[in-house]
């Protein structure tokens, strides 16, 4: 059974050039050419300058997030991570993962490496899906800073209330889908 494909996200990425990088490079090249042709060189270079600067501004955040994600498996034992959010962690594990997603600060450059790290350290895919879903739907940082400043409070509260069970449901559905497959 050694040839069986690993579950998505369950391994630490190693290959520097892979299908995903080739795909996003193609998207960038094709969309970049389209912008150059339809909107002119000015618009093209505007995007290049803005996104390059933004990536530069992200670097300190990325490094901090990566250090956290890399240190985590050394500070918390695999058994502990498995007990908290592993395949046998049940509904409690999905709730923990959802809450973790909601409170982790730092956005995508932190949440994704942290999820990869947890998956490699013993969390199951259902918990990984619950964590990312908890972050995108309930992320405290984005909701408190941005959503409340633009949208009426009763709308935001209703959206959060309706979204509360969703990450747990999606994590549970993932576990059902992958039932019987070894991690």
């Amino acid at each position: 059974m050694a040839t069986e494909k690993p579950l998505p996200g369950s391994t630490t990425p190693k290959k520097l050039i892979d299908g995903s990088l080739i795909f996003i490079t193609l998207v960038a090249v094709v969309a970049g050419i389209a912008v150059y042709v339809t909107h002119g060189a000015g618009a093209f270079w505007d995007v290049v300058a803005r996104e390059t600067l933004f990536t530069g501004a992200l670097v300190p955040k990325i490094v901090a997030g990566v250090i956290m994600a890399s240190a985590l498996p050394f500070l918390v034992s695999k058994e502990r991570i498995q007990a908290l959010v592993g395949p046998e962690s049940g509904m409690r594990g999905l709730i923990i993962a959802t809450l973790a997603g909601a409170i982790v600060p730092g956005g995508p450059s932190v949440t994704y490496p942290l999820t990869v790290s947890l998956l490699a350290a013993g969390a199951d895919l259902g918990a990984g899906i619950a964590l990312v879903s908890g972050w995108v739907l309930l992320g405290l940082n984005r909701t408190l800073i941005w959503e409340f400043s633009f949208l009426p409070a009763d709308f935001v509260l209703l959206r959060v209330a309706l979204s509360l069970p969703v990450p747990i449901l999606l994590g549970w559905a993932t576990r059902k889908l992958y039932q019987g497959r070894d991690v």
Partner: protein
Amino acid sequence: MNILIGTLVLWGLALWMLRKMQGQDAADRTAMWARSKATVIFMLPRILVGLLGAGFLAVLLPVDQIEQNFGTESGLMGITLATIFGLITPGGPFVAYAIGAAAMKAGATLAPLMAYVTAWSIVNLNRSIAYELPLMGRHFLLLRTILSVPVPMVLGLLVWAFQ
């Protein structure tokens, strides 16, 4: 400003974890730094290329069209349209909230607004291309997207049914 505060909070947490690492074996610390370095080298080109692609797409996508058309339809059709608009709305942390607020002022009802904001939150093109695909891989992104796309429709319909 937000990015600065976020970075400071993260560095506080990272330094706290590094301090805890001092209690571990030297070999563990070496392994941790090696892993950190490999991950940063893995992430940086991906985030730059992903953000460039998402930035170009944002120029090409008709954001003003979204603002004009959203909320003009109600019921199932309005909720479906709002979901599609939400999935393709590009931009940083607040573009969709600004569009939603503008649509509300223009008379959009609660149900399509719920579908729109939820769709943009749960799966958006920008984040999928710039971060999720390159960092999590195709399988994770596809699985999460397929599971998530019905959610804004369901939430929109719930609001519509109980309104």
